[in-house]
């Protein structure tokens, strides 16, 4: 808020442009002497009333460990005809300019002090303090120096907390991310009258004082890897072999149990094979039993095997799910319906698991080859702690958005194993392979207005892996020219002040260039799209 100095008020002009000519008074007043009537019409002399310097300071200014500045000062430079300031700008090259308004944390006392100048008229200067409507009424203070207590809305937290259930989890939580300041208007004024030859006057100065809430909040998310579910079924023929496969896997992290059954049946003129694999797991470990009954070309292939494995990763099967919300160290979690958030996460998981339907539809196009799919999903597993609030910046008169983020969160992790048939270059072929995509955010970030300024964003691209291959019918063969472009794409973006976590994940288009290499005919090369891009989800999680 830069204000120009006011020009010194000119003497009030007398009525008429030129004084009337001297008249000889009938009353005998001597000629060339001012008459009493005219004298009364001369402007009244304005006494000097102005100041040279105006300083704003808070109770922390000049105190070690608090604010390094003694005050934020503005003064009149008569030589330049300008109002000067000692405002300390930011060392952050991206945002060097800082606001003029004085920013403090509730509660505080602002000292406004005028100094220098030719003196004041009686009752001058004045300081008009206009608080936000909810915090009081306008006051006019007289004199060159004042101390004004400023504050934020005292019940702001409770007021907003009461609305949490009404607004829902996410909107309710966002209310506490850096609420706007309470802005107090300070208007300091004098007459601006200065003795000649001073041309410029300070006259008056309007300044805003922004008061921020003192609260430091913290949210914590500790979400276990909750649930993985996969189903795959396929039946059809491969040449003279008839087959029927099915599998169901259900892992429940909360209950720390897992159960899967896989059955395979293959029959042809000389082969009969039935294989059943059942796996049962709990917190102590997993036992897998594989039973096989069958003959291939008259040879017996029956077997019954057991395999044991250690307990699944305890971190993944952690039973505790938690969302915590604290204000100045006090726990207010119970005020939030965290179940809404958990449901939200489950909904996302369901959406990602919808991939299997997508692949099933592809697989149905070539039922003779059959298909098998498996999709593993983990969404929002891990931990996140985000602390935030306003803090005074020690180097100047501003307040910055303090935050501290500690995160090790798998926003989404998906793995799709696929195998399905399709027509490729007028020949039947099988697309097979596995693709993985993981959006994981790990690290610690803390606001540092000295270095990087308040702007902070963490953007994480997905870690992708896997590969997709194609095989044609035996005889002629299919060669992939280059690589099949298939996999996951997306990004997770965390905005830190205020906090928001957005993520999107798509199954990218499955596309490649293929050559059907013929033994007897022309080989043909063509680009083909195996499947179109499929958006899986795009959400603002918080």
């Amino acid at each position: 808020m830069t204000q120009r100095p006011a020009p010194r008020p000119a003497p009030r002009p007398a009525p008429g442009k030129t004084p009337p000519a001297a008249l000889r008074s009938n009353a005998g007043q001597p000629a060339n002497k001012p008459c009493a009537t005219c004298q009364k019409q001369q402007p009244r002399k304005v006494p000097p009333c102005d100041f040279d310097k105006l300083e704003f300071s808070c109770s922390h200014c000049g105190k070690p460990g608090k604010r390094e500045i003694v005050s934020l000062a503005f003064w009149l430079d008569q030589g330049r005809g300008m109002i000067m300031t000692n405002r300390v700008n930011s060392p952050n090259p991206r945002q060097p300019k800082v606001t003029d308004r004085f920013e403090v944390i509730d509660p505080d006392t602002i000292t406004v002090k005028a100094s220098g100048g030719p003196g004041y008229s009686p009752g001058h200067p004045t300081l008009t303090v206009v608080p936000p409507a909810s915090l009081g009424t306008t006051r006019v203070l007289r004199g060159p120096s004042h101390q004004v207590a400023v504050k934020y809305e005292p019940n702001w937290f409770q007021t907003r907390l009461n609305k949490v259930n009404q607004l829902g989890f996410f909107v309710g939580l966002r209310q506490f991310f850096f609420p706007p300041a309470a802005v107090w208007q300070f208007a300091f004024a004098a007459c601006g009258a200065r003795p000649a030859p001073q041309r410029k006057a300070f006259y008056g100065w309007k300044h805003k004082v922004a008061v921020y809430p003192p609260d430091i909040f913290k949210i914590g998310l500790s979400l276990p890897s909750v649930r993985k579910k996969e189903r795959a079924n396929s039946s059809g023929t491969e040449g003279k072999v008839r087959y029927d496969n099915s599998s169901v896997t259900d892992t429940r992290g909360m209950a720390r149990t897992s159960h899967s059954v896989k059955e395979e049946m293959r029959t042809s003129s000389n082969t009969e094979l039935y294989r059943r694999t059942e796996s049962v797991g709990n917190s102590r470990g997993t036992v897998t039993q594989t039973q096989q009954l069958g003959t291939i070309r008259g040879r017996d292939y029956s077997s019954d095997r057991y395999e044991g494995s250690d307990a699944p990763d305890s971190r993944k099967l952690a039973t505790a799910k938690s969302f915590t919300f604290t204000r100045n160290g006090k726990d207010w979690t119970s005020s939030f319906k965290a179940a809404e958030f958990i449901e939200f996460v489950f909904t996302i998981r369901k959406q990602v698991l919808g991939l299997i339907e997508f692949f099933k539809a592809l697989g149905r196009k070539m039922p003779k080859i059959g298909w098998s799919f498996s999709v593993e999903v983990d969404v929002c597993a891990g931990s996140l702690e985000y602390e935030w609030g306003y803090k005074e910046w020690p180097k100047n008169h501003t307040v910055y958005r303090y935050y501290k983020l500690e995160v090790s969160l798998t926003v989404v992790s998906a793995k799709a194993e696929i195998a399905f048939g399709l027509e490729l270059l007028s020949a039947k072929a099988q697309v097979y392979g596995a693709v993985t995509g993981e959006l994981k955010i790990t690290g610690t970030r803390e606001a540092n207005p000295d270095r990087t300024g308040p702007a902070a964003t963490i953007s994480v691209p997905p870690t992708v892996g896997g590969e997709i291959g194609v095989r044609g019918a035996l005889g002629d063969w299919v060669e992939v020219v280059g690589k099949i472009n298939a996999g996951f794409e997306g990004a997770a973006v965390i905005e830190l002040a205020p906090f928001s976590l957005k993520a999107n994940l798509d199954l990218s288009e499955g596309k490649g260039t293929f050559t059907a290499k013929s033994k007897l005919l022309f080989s043909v090369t063509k680009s083909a799209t195996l499947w179109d891009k499929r958006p899986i989800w795009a959400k603002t999680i918080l």
Partner: protein
Amino acid sequence: MTTVDYLNVSIHGYACELFVNGAPILRTPVDTPYTAIPSVGEWLVSGDNEIAVRIDAIAPPTAIVDPLSPRRLIVQRCVGPLGEVVPAGEDQVVDGLTFAPLPDDPPPTLPHRVAYNFRLPPGPTWAWQTAAVLSLDMATTAELFMFLDALHADLVEGDIPGLLSRQKIKFAELAPLYGTTPEAARAALEQQFSELAKDGAWTVAPLRHEEVRLHLCCGGRVIEPRSARDDGPVFRGLAADGNAWSLPVFISRIDGMFEVVR
């Protein structure tokens, strides 16, 4: 049920060329995974056989190891039903080779050759096995280019009977191997040509002698002409429906005359 011998090739991180008894089957890129199941029965012979891989380049180690797309060099000789899609992982493997150096092993001197031998029972003797051993002298090269020019002219003119007349041995030997007859295969080729060339879409890339590299293989009994630009077939062009066509050829001198044998 007719079965075919094929290779289940799965290579990632190695630029290599795969040979069966000296015949080049396929080449792999260094930077992308490669999987294919080429059938190779026409290159297998009675008695001793060799499958070899020449490694020309090795991808540098990556910081992130992808367990679903690991570095590997696996070639498996398999047998399967002709015309059927054998699902991945269900190949009937006969034998094969794997190149898997330990992390501490010194890197091999490139090109590095990995091979294994196996014996097969008596079977047909292919024409290329008894073809003349060639050397790429000026006279032979000039004669070869004349043969290639003739093939190219057949393709440019769309003269499929002319083209077939130079591939008699190939059709005679391969058709039974792949469950058909030479006549049916010829008819299929003519049908395919009419589809590729519909609406006048058939074009043939020019054959520039300076851009042709002649590769001697199978102990000098077979020549594979390749494009110097990309190691691809020299006979290629564009066809209908946005397709690109190509005709890889392997040539031998049979009874004093050049013939397309594969």
